[in-house]
């Protein structure tokens, strides 16, 4: 028990956090479209219906906006709702309740009430997810005062951050990545939490800082491996929570390396990568040895066909190429190196 480790995947980690917290706190309930069905949101809600019953794990009609308002009302009534969406894109149907109501509700009540609302949602990718099943939108939410925004990368973070979100007394948008569901690593068995607002150094390095979000951390780590073969050591900083942001961790790293690349799992324009670049420019401009660079989705809707999708998403090789430019190194031939794809295990409607 306690902190004994064993390897589980990201999805099991999410599931375990829900089981442990729901067992402890009877006010927590999970709901959303398809949440208790046989697919159990890719397995992340598995066993909740059987363990906690239909009052605490239930399906809803297809009305994201109203069920988001429902979550707000339930929180006002002393409950701790967890509203689950199988794609981030579907949250756009709930933006009025999220942005106009939930985000400012406590302010309108003088900051006196607890609003423990967790909105779990999943970024899709691959096998033609296309323009309506592939959005991330972290900067949409992080732009709004009153919301916390979390994007776990590792299984350990998935469990620790979800536990923290479930215990927080404020609204949290919890953005998962479908491809990370299979990531497997050491996760403590017992309850533990990772405070919201605390980033993580995924890999230490001295030559350049990559600030990456969600899946882009996987690409950044792969790029770091490729670069290490050339004797270039990059540091990979995962903010883990977009809001509140662990700015100090990012600045410390950039002060050390003097170079900063932001690899965001989202569009670049007016996005989180711009926020990080601005803060680095504002607060450690004098330590920069090269301009801050950014990588993210191409500024197009996400195409369905694979060859265009490959162009749409940045990958480890693109990261390496940009870093070569930043450091003034000659390009190297990466044609023999693999690129990540979960196409072989990720077939079908989702």
């Amino acid at each position: 028990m306690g902190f004994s480790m064993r390897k589980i995947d990201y999805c099991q980690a999410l599931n375990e956090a829900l089981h442990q917290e729901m067992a402890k706190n009877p006010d927590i309930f999970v709901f959303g479209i398809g949440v208790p069905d046989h697919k159990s949101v890719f397995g992340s809600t598995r066993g909740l219906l059987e363990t906690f019953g239909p009052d605490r794990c239930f399906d809803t009609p297809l009305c994201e906006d109203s069920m988001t308002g429902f979550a707000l009302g339930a929180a006002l009534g002393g409950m701790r709702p967890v509203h689950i969406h199988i794609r981030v894109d579907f949250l756009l149907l709930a933006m009025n309740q999220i942005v106009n109501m939930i985000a400012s509700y406590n302010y309108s009540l003088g900051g006196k009430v607890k609003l423990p609302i967790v909105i779990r949602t999943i970024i899709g990718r691959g096998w033609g997810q296309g323009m309506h099943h592939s959005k991330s939108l972290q900067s949409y939410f992080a732009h709004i005062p009153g919301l916390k925004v979390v994007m776990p990368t590792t299984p350990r973070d998935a469990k620790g951050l979800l536990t923290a979100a479930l215990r927080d007394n404020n609204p949290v948008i919890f953005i998962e990545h479908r491809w990370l569901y299979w990531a497997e690593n050491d996760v403590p068995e017992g309850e533990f939490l990772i405070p919201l607002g605390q980033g993580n150094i995924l890999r230490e390095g001295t030559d350049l800082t990559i600030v990456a979000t969600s899946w882009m951390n996987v690409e950044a780590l792969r790029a770091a491996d490729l670069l290490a073969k050339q004797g270039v050591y990059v540091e990979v900083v995962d903010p883990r929570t977009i809001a509140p942001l662990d700015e100090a961790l990012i600045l410390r790293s950039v002060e050390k390396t003097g170079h900063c690349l932001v690899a965001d799992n989202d569009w670049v324009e007016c996005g989180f990568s711009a926020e990080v670049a601005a803060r680095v420019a504002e607060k450690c401009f004098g330590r920069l040895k090269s301009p801050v660079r950014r990588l993210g989705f191409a500024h197009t809707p996400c195409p369905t066909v694979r060859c265009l999708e490959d162009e749409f998403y940045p990958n480890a090789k693109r990261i390496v190429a940009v870093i070569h430019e930043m450091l003034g190194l000659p390009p190297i031939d990466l044609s023999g190196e693999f690129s990540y794809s979960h196409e072989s295990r990720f077939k079908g409607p989702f």
Partner: protein
Amino acid sequence: MSYPGLELYKKLYLARRCEEYIVKYYPQNDMKTPMHMSMGQEAVAVGVCHAVGSTGLVLATYRSHAAFLAHTQNVPLFFSELYGRVNGLANGKSGSMHLADPDHGHWGSSGIVASTIPIALGLAFAQKRKNTGATTVVFFGDGAIDEGSFWESINVAALMKLPVLFVCEDNGYAVHTPSKKRHGYDSIVDIVGQFRCATFSDDSNDVESICNMTQQALSIIQAGGGPVFLHIKCYRYLEHVGINDDMKDAYRPVEIQEAWLKKDCLVLQRLRLINEQGVEEIVIQQLEEQVETSIHHSIVAAKQYSSPDPSQLFHGVFYEEN
């Protein structure tokens, strides 16, 4: 108070006079908040809130002075909030459009049409889960029934048998657009009645009728019969937003206004007290003076408070432990 009708009259009078004071003092430019006045529609809020009682949980709209006052009777903090004073309900951050007073069962108002309707679902769900027996009441205008979230919410409430009282205050206009230019149907009650949701209608403007009808609705909800929808016709005396009469703009027929003025809810109830319930005029006058004094004191007291300190700006975005 031994006459039940007198308490209803007192609440009507309170709501009306508070707004008449707003009309009087608003031009001094010290209440810097857009006013969507309830004047003329008070019978709905007073009749419903009186029936629901202090244990009821209320959600309202930006046109919610009457509902706020009828449910909380918190006149001092009402004016402190409108004047933007530090002791206001939300230290002046909310103003007229976001009135709330959770300590008195008022859980908020919204500047976005229909947006508190779904909140009522969750609040009612929590009451059911926690077995409090409390009923959640949500007020909204006829403009709100054009919004998708109204239809989503009626469906969810009926499906989940939630203890919610939906109160449609139908003043016939969404801002300046009459319902006949907005509705591809004739009767909202007929449509809502197709859901597993009981419906009641009223166009009397009579606070006692509305109160009695609400009591019937509450008995259905409290017996576990699920949500109830009240459709109550009413008439807004003033402009959509602001303190002025806008009949000069000629978008509302004068004859309709005259018909509603003839059945002004305060006039109806005052006459009933005297003619049917044997209340002496002097008793009513004393009550009116009492209300008058309390409003006057509240306004004087509110103005003595300061505005919030600039450092207040950052407080309350997130929950703060006391």
